[in-house]
């Protein structure tokens, strides 16, 4: 008895340290990977190198932030990958040929997301089932629109994604802007607190007089909006589209949000962490590439890095729970 009381302040300190460690883990894993790259291939850490390594992280970041919004309401969006692919197909075909119609279609897509949020809330449906259905809907639409790979990115989009910002490479500038906007919107505004609260304690938010329907619609709409931005960014980089272009983004976005400190339940998300998570995932690929692992092991190694980072987090969390 007396022993544990004496140990109390020490434990509190330990818990504090764990919390800081937990918050710093996404940044720490990113730092380790950047150091690894710098050690293996010093010339990659240059304006040119960072631009090359990170420009494909921009669409991943946008998709991850999108995923984070639905995660804030304890849902998952399995359709975001094919949605990004579909947006890409629209961008390379309709938006390129007829900007007005293209913009209308993309706006309509966001509308579909808002509706999806409403249906999921009103009918109390599991988001995983609904968005898995949408996964195939978006993929089908993409194949209908672009049965064979092709199309051209609008010139303004190519120019934007390849813009040369002074001193700091464009992908880093883009990431800072995305993180700042999402952070201020979701973490610093009072309505942002309501949005997160809907995932943390929906009943409390409802009793306080806020419409959960509106919250769900807004969060899904934001996911759709980020998905559209991700599709645009991706096409600006690839310059041409393919119906299967974005399929991998579903898992990448979930992994990015989780790496960045998000949780599947409890409305616990972190915009800055998500951006860092997306960058970590992208750079992990570069690191493996620079390590010259035998092709037989490359596939497994990519998964290995993910497991290592997540395992570190679980260890810290578990330590926090037992003390």
């Amino acid at each position: 008895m007396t022993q544990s009381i004496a140990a109390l302040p020490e434990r509190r300190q330990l818990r504090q340290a764990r919390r800081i460690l937990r918050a710093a883990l996404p940044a720490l894993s990113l730092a380790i990977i950047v150091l690894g790259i710098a050690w293996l291939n010093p010339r990659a850490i240059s304006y040119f190198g960072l631009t090359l390594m990170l420009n494909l992280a921009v669409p991943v970041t946008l998709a991850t932030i999108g995923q984070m919004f639905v995660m804030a309401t304890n849902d998952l969006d399995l359709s975001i990958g094919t949605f990004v692919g579909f947006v890409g197909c629209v961008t390379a075909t309709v938006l390129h040929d007829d900007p007005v119609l293209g913009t209308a279609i993309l706006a309509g897509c966001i509308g579909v997301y808002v509706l999806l949020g409403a249906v999921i809330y009103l009918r109390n449906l599991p988001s995983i089932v609904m968005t898995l259905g949408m996964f195939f809907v978006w993929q089908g639409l993409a194949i209908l629109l672009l049965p064979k790979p092709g199309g051209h990115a609008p010139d303004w989009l190519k120019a934007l994604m390849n813009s040369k910002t002074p001193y700091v490479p464009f992908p880093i500038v883009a990431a800072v802007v995305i993180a700042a906007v999402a952070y201020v919107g979701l973490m610093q505004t009072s309505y942002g607190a309501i949005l997160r609260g809907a995932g943390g304690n929906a009943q409390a938010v409802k009793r306080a007089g806020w419409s959960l329907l509106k919250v769900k619609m807004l969060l899904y709409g934001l996911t759709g909006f980020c998905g559209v931005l991700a599709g645009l960014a991706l096409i600006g980089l690839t310059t041409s589209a393919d119906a299967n272009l974005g399929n991998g983004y579903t898992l990448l976005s979930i992994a990015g949000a989780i790496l960045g400190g998000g949780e599947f339940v409890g409305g616990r998300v972190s915009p800055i962490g998500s951006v860092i998570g997306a960058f970590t995932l992208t750079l992990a690929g570069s690191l493996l590439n620079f390590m010259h692992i035998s092709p037989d092991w490359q596939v497994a190694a990519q998964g290995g890095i993910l497991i290592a980072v997540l395992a570190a987090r679980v260890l810290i969390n578990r330590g926090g729970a037992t003390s």
Partner: protein
Amino acid sequence: MRRNGTSALALTAILMSTAAVRAETKDMRIAFSNNYAGNSWRQAMLKSYGAVAQKAVDDKIIAGSDVFTTADKEVPTQAAQIQNLILQGYNAIVINAASPNALNGAVKQACDAGIVVVSFDGIVTEPCAYRVTVDYRALAAAEIDYLATRLPKGGSLLEIRGVAGTSIDDDFHNGIQDGLKKHPDFKVVNSVEGDWDETTAQKAVATVLPSLPPVVGVVDQGGDGYGAAQAFKTAGRPFPIIIMGNRQDELAWWVDQKKANGYETWSASSAPGVATLAFWVAQQVLDGRKDIPHDIVDPYLAFTQETVEAALPKIPVGGVATIEYSLDDSKKIIADSVKK
């Protein structure tokens, strides 16, 4: 400014020296960016490529060769991989691409960085890259040509198609149409989707077989001939001339039938060793050759009644016949493509 001036001078000196003597590739490195390794064709491709590239390194023709396979089949992953290869200072990148169009951004970046890009099998459409392709259309037309030599009177054919929506399936189908125009006595009475997979082909053929008139030949795309034969056997119908596609099980069945009852057919497909041709094309471009066309046609690999038995033991069970090109073979193929 002064530094810029001297480096520009040095650059001109280098350019002049390459113009004077042929560039040496012994200090150059070639990377292979591959998007998928999960089937027997791709495994054979990696094996052939590894053997030929390693020998080139041992012979001091090039300084290094590395193979990179993406963890998933996704286009953005391969685009990122190509960008990483640019950063590692490779002189050339050989690509089997996940998408003909969607890697163009990354490929252009590589070209802009002065890197030679050679694509094959899964080719890229970016004009600065080289493409080594198999003329599937000519291959499919040759299937009908072969049938015409065996069956001068023509007859009903069954067509087995590949994975829908791919350029390969499209090419094969158009080639068969070309062949039918040339030999109007043949007509395709039905076509099924076999997806280059024996099991799928067997099921698809078995489904339509009861409704078909007597069929004299089966034209297909490879990976489906053995399945078709099984379907005919199960239905108790005589075997028509089934064109094969160089898979081990197909050739083994053919050899068995040949021994048992003198069955005759023809087999052709693209060889996974086309990767080695792409490798040598990259080496030749690095060596300073300016006359190489950006589109190079790889001759397909065919087996006849006379050659099949000798070839069969060299193909691993479950694998596909391949050929590893030497530098001299590759020079010949390049020369043929120059003529065209």
